[in-house]
């Protein structure tokens, strides 16, 4: 392994710090900005006693630093509060919605990465040709499209006008009931394969295509543009020039040598774009009725369901941190100069 145990420990410590930081920021946002947080916390239709209870629960009678400390304690104990909307613990809610989002995001990132790198390589190889210009314009447009609008348009065109693909929901209830499909991992594509349930697999696949494509637009354009830029940069680097001068075949130079140098920054930028993508997922899930954490968070947000919002925010932030760690690990695996 090109990374040491200390590195992992360090990253874990860092993760703890990040979570602390996120908690700190959310604490400020939820406890210090609203004029009377207990009113928000107690939720609608709360009685005076309930509000008083919320006050106690939020420790608002204590000094601010004690509040923060107790807030931390609650969080670590897995006590993320009860969602006002669903009346169930936020922790379980978040866990149950997470897989749907992950499935969507993973498929989207997969498409974005593979297609993006390929497109970028083509653009770099055909630098300054009409293909390159075309790719450039398409990817600039793609990176500029408001994802929510794209979702609406795609849904309208493919779902309504053309009727090619289903444009809502994760899987069809009828098929689920007909075939007796039971989610295990929560990743329907995987679950259906495990159960050998072709009908559900096909249906789930059909339904994930549009939202995943919409969601992948931004990371796709990003990785295509990054690939092109980095590849051209790599092409101009001495180590590629020397391989050319030494007469190695283009295929080897491109796919064995240059691609490896290109991939790290591309992955890094994708990792960074995770933050945008997950928020994109909020909107895409909203439009495509996708029961993921984005949908959950957006709904919680609209009804000011604070415990739920915070739960989502922290979960996403942890994932963001993990993904950036993974990017670093990949970097260290690919690049021997990086020792972690």
């Amino acid at each position, binding site marked *: 392994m090109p990374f040491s145990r200390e590195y992992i420990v360090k990253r874990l410590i860092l993760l703890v710090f990040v979570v602390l930081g996120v908690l700190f920021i959310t604490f400020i946002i939820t406890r210090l900005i609203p004029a009377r947080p207990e009113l928000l916390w107690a939720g*609608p239709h709360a009685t005076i006693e309930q509000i008083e209870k919320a006050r106690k629960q939020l420790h608002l009678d204590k000094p601010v630093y004690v509040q923060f400390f107790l807030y931390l304690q609650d969080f670590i104990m897995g006590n993320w509060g009860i969602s006002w909307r669903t009346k169930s613990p936020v922790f379980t809610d978040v866990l149950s919605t997470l897989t749907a989002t992950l499935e969507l995001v993973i498929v989207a990132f997969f498409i974005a990465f593979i297609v993006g790198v390929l497109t970028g390589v083509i653009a770099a190889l055909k630098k300054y040709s009409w293909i390159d210009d075309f790719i450039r314009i398409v990817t600039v447009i793609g990176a500029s499209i408001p994802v929510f609008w794209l979702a609406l348009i795609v849904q309208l065109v493919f779902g309504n006008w053309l*009727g090619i*693909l289903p444009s809502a*929901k994760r899987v*069809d209830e009828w098929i689920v009931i007909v075939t007796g499909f039971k989610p295990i991992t929560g990743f329907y594509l995987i679950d259906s394969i495990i159960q050998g349930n072709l009908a559900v697999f096909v249906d789930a696949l059909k339904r994930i295509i549009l939202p995943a494509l919409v969601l992948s637009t931004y990371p796709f354009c990003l990785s295509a543009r990054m690939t092109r830029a980095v590849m051209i940069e790599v092409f101009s680097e001495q180590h590629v020039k020397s391989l050319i001068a030494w007469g190695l075949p283009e295929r080897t130079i491109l796919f064995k040598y240059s691609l490896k140098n290109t991939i790290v920054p591309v992955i890094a930028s994708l990792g960074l774009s995770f933050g945008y993508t997950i928020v994109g997922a909020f909107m895409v899930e909203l439009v495509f009725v996708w029961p993921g954490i984005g949908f959950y968070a957006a*709904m919680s947000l609209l009804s000011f369901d604070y415990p739920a919002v915070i739960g989502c925010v922290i979960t996403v932030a942890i994932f963001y941190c993990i993904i950036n760690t993974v990017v670093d690990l990949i970097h260290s695996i690919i690049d021997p100069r990086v020792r972690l």
Partner: protein
Amino acid sequence: YVSLPTPPTVTPTTITTPTPSQTPSVTKKLVIYASLSEMTTADPSTEFSNSILWLCLVYEPLLWYDPLENKFIPALAERWESSKDGTVWTFYLRKGVVFHDGTPFTAEAVKKSIERTIELGQGAAFIWDPVEKIEIVDDYTVTFILKYPAALDSIAASSYGAWIFSPRTPNTPEWFNQGNDAGSGPYKLVKWDPENEVILEKFEDWWGWKLPSYEMASPKAPDIFIVKIVKDAVTQERLVVAGEIDIAEYIPLEDVDRLKADPNLKVVIKPSFQNLLMLINTKKPPLDNVLVRRAIAHAIPYEDIVKIARSGLAKVASGPVPTGMPGHFEDFRYRYDLEEARRLLAEAGYPTGLDKTLVLVYTAGDVYEQRTSELIAASLSKIGIKVDIRPMSWEEQWALAQSGWENPEMAQDLFIFYWWPTYITPFDFLYNMFHSGSKAFNLCYYENPEFERLIEEAVSLEGVDKSKALELYYKAQKILYEDVPAVPLWDMIEVRVGRAYLGNLEKAVNPAYPTVIFAQVLSVEK
């Protein structure tokens, strides 16, 4: 349209389930209903919100009420009677009813259920306020002794808090919210995922199936009924058009005409008892001046609001009690008359309009409220009243409004507000929104002893002397009409869109039970 993802041998609404208990595979009828909002709790005693949608199918009250025909339909009670002064009510219960857990239904269940609801004191428990005690006469007779006269038949038919459930189950909130049910109704709860879907399955032992003449049952009722949460109207429309769901609760209203023309669909348009009002902060200058409030009432383009906000699918309100309900009178419409409004404003001392900008709050995400608010703002600007419209989450909005009782200056000026009845009585509207005892929802901060006396007297007369009661309600509403603590805007006309093969869809909708589809009366024709 979306191609159906079902295997070719399976028709959209009939599916084959390889249930292990039934050796031959049977064809089952399935209906998917799209609900705009997610479900709330599963506890029949405390639920006071959206879960009514399926509670109505899983649980039964003593009576159902059909407001359009103004008649009660027996449910768990076959007959009932009240004493002359309306303080003692006796219900004769149906025999041969079993709960889903197999427990036979008796008077004990009635007593225990209602007492639990009263004890927990949450949600709609207040409806039982008149009840002094419940006495079991015999297994199939139960008597309610009241503290003061009340229309207990209406209360027993309430859409909230009137459910009867099995006395043999744990009946704790946790137990219910784990997805258990203790009902006796035509359907039982199979899956409880309040954010995404609720699945109900036909309860074969329901007494109603065996009673061919019973109007609340259909031989071709769906075997499986799914409540699917689909959070926006556009998608609901798309899904019902594509046949992926069978009934859409909310669709964009401008599409109604187009959907009516679709031979595959059936559009049901029925009045509802939901209405929209604009509550005015009567404690905050300059709105504490009744002349200003009247001016505002005359400056609102009621007809246009109905046309634009609801695409015509509403009726301009006349008083806070919605059209079709007892206690509704046609005499309380304000005239849209800008001249009159300007005159009133001048009389109040504001000839050139108000110098203060009024804050209007509405629930974010509700397109009808948004459009209504925008129209009000646009129109009031014509008489020199500037309005700042603020979309807020309901929780925020309500928290802000609550502060108004302590400090009206801090609160909003105008509040766009829906109300729908807990059970069918004008009192529910008049008390909750305008009585100073109702701090939670009287968000006009309106206090008028004369009005309060009138409605209190009226409600006590409801069970005894209906016409006298209505007379008092009329007087009370007249006071509101003149005082203008709120401007009633429109009474809603509800729209449901279903697939054409759903018979009796019209019958399955009852304005007394908002958003409910009585699945047991549906007739699935395919």
